């Protein structure tokens, strides 16, 4: 079991910088999820860790060994590919045993190891089949088996569930998470699916255009997003972000915009400042029209089964238990508790934190 460290890892393709100066420290036994939109450099980063792609700059360590210039077969890592990459001409048993045969292990040992892995993954009855005779979920498990059989120091997985249907995906997600709990093997897992990231990760590394946007546990990333990008990437529907001005009114700070007035619950007196205000749809509550909050007109109501989402004309959405009790066309006022409001810098989009020390204290 291994610790993976990246330092200033960068990869350029011509003029494109696919991965830009990424530093990460993946602790032994951790399940790190690389999360980000399509094209943000997740696969490129993972392929550099695997040794399939040389970095343009930066260094890599596995435990205490620098592996920046080691070829993949000399790094103690196994990879599961998005397309599974099973050898089409080999049976399931031979696919799983392939890495061991490469390492010239004794035949009996290979057989025992393959049988053990197959039993773990419920593949015992399929060992003689060819990959094309398997369902998507079974192929996925064979690919997993081929990685498991090596007992590697770390697992690298590139969107291993993206080719499965929704139901199978949920099942396999739980299976992989269970496997990780049992084996405690360091895993770097690439996905663009926020549900996978939230449910499986011990930590999430959120990438945007090749840069590390935020690194933290799922709750940290969800509850205290480091930027507007992080705030809007996680959550469904996305966090509402509105341009507002923070100003002091009667000694307390409020965020104000056209049809919007929310108290930040901070007693202070500062000059007006433009900020971007974020609030998650589930943290907005409907109050009787006329009070303080966000005034909006409901344009559509979505039924999610246990919950409902109301979309409003200002682009704001509200999420709550069904029924929400509003109909399209209705004018509503939405309020939120101060601790649920997130403030981001207007220009950089980075999270703003209130530092009491900087407040001029009235004597």
């Amino acid at each position: 079991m291994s610790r993976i460290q990246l330092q200033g890892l960068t990869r350029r393709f011509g003029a494109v910088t696919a991965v830009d100066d990424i530093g990460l420290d993946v602790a032994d036994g951790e399940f790190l999820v690389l999360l980000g939109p399509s094209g943000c450099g997740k696969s490129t980063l993972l392929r550099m860790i695997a040794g399939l792609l040389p970095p343009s700059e930066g260094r890599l360590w596995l435990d205490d060994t620098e592996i920046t210039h080691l070829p993949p077969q000399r790094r103690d890592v196994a990879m599961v590919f998005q397309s599974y990459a099973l050898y089409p001409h080999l049976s399931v048993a031979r696919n799983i045993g392939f890495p061991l045969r490469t390492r010239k292990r004794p035949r009996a040992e290979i057989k025992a190891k393959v049988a053990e892995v197959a039993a773990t993954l419920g593949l015992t009855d399929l060992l003689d089949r060819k990959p094309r005779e398997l369902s998507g979920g079974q192929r996925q498990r064979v690919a997993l088996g081929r990685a498991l059989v090596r007992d590697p120091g770390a697992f690298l997985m590139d969107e291993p569930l993206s080719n499965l249907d929704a139901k199978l995906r949920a099942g396999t997600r739980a299976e992989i998470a269970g496997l990780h709990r049992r084996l405690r093997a360091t895993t770097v897992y690439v996905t663009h699916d926020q549900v996978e990231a939230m449910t499986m990760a011990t930590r999430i590394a959120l990438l945007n255009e090749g840069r590390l946007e935020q690194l933290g546990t799922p709750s940290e990333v969800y509850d205290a997003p480091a930027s507007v990008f992080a705030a809007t990437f996680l959550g469904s529907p996305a966090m509402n972000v509105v341009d507002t001005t923070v100003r002091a009114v009667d000694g307390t700070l409020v965020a104000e915009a056209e049809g919007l007035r929310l108290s930040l619950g901070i007693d202070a007196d500062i000059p007006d400042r433009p900020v971007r205000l974020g609030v998650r749809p589930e943290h907005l509550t409907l109050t009787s029209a006329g009070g303080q909050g966000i005034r909006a007109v409901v344009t559509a109501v979505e039924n999610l089964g246990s919950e409902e989402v109301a979309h409003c004309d200002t682009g704001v959405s509200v999420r709550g238990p069904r029924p929400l009790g509003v109909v399209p066309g209705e004018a509503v006022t939405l309020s939120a508790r101060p601790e649920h409001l997130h403030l981001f810098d207007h220009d950089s989009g980075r999270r703003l934190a209130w530092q009491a020390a900087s407040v001029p204290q009235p004597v």
Partner: protein
Amino acid sequence: MTTDEVVGESSRGRRLGGHVVLGVLSLACVFPIYWLYATSLRAPQDVYSLSVLPWPLSTASYTEAFAKNDVLGMLFNTGVIAVLSALGQLLVALLAAYAFAAWRFPLQRLLYLMFVGTWLVPFQATMLPNYVLLSRLGLLETLAGVIVPTLCSALGVLLLREHLNSFPKELLDAARMDGRSSWSTLWTVVVPALRPALAALGILLAISAWNEYFWPAMVLQRSNAVVQLGLRSFMGTEGNDWGPLMATAGLACLPVFVLYLVLQRHIVNAFVRSGLK
């Protein structure tokens, strides 16, 4: 209503018309072959007969052909040339195509264009230099002289590179992660997965080597080492000896027909893939 009707299918009459046209065309293709075997089975005095059925049947032409030439030896030599030439070309094409598809290296495009370029150079242009080279090497009038210059075929490189380009790159990556070297990946992953394409190409190359006349004629000169040359011995200034000529030609076609019957699907595949002939 039958279930195998095609949407938009026109009247029965037009479909029948189509079948008649196809039937006539295939008859036109098959007839010369039929006539070849028919003539070879006529008695010597009936060789010029125009009766459609060769009657009485006679194997005299075959006896004469075997008496005049070592037909079995010729067939064997031709077989050796076809097999070795096809295998050699497959090997060269496989290695070159793998390098072009799996690796990035400087001047790659230029080198590939040069490979393709050799395909565009007509045979007549390289024939004489090759001949001179063989003569210097002392390979004239040997089977090796026929085989060696054919070993590198641009066609094979072209076709296999196309196959390898559409070969999933993740499989190559997976083999690397599993610890295989490039060389071992080629033989344990790429070749088994490309078997149908390799078989098709191999058959295509073997058949064209088998049917080759001009190049063996140049290299082997007056000897009748291969069957296509053996045919010459029945052509003379005073006229052709049609019976044994047809018998030998019939025997020369036989292996190709047998191959075709056994591996029909692969061969059709080969010609379709190559976009040739």
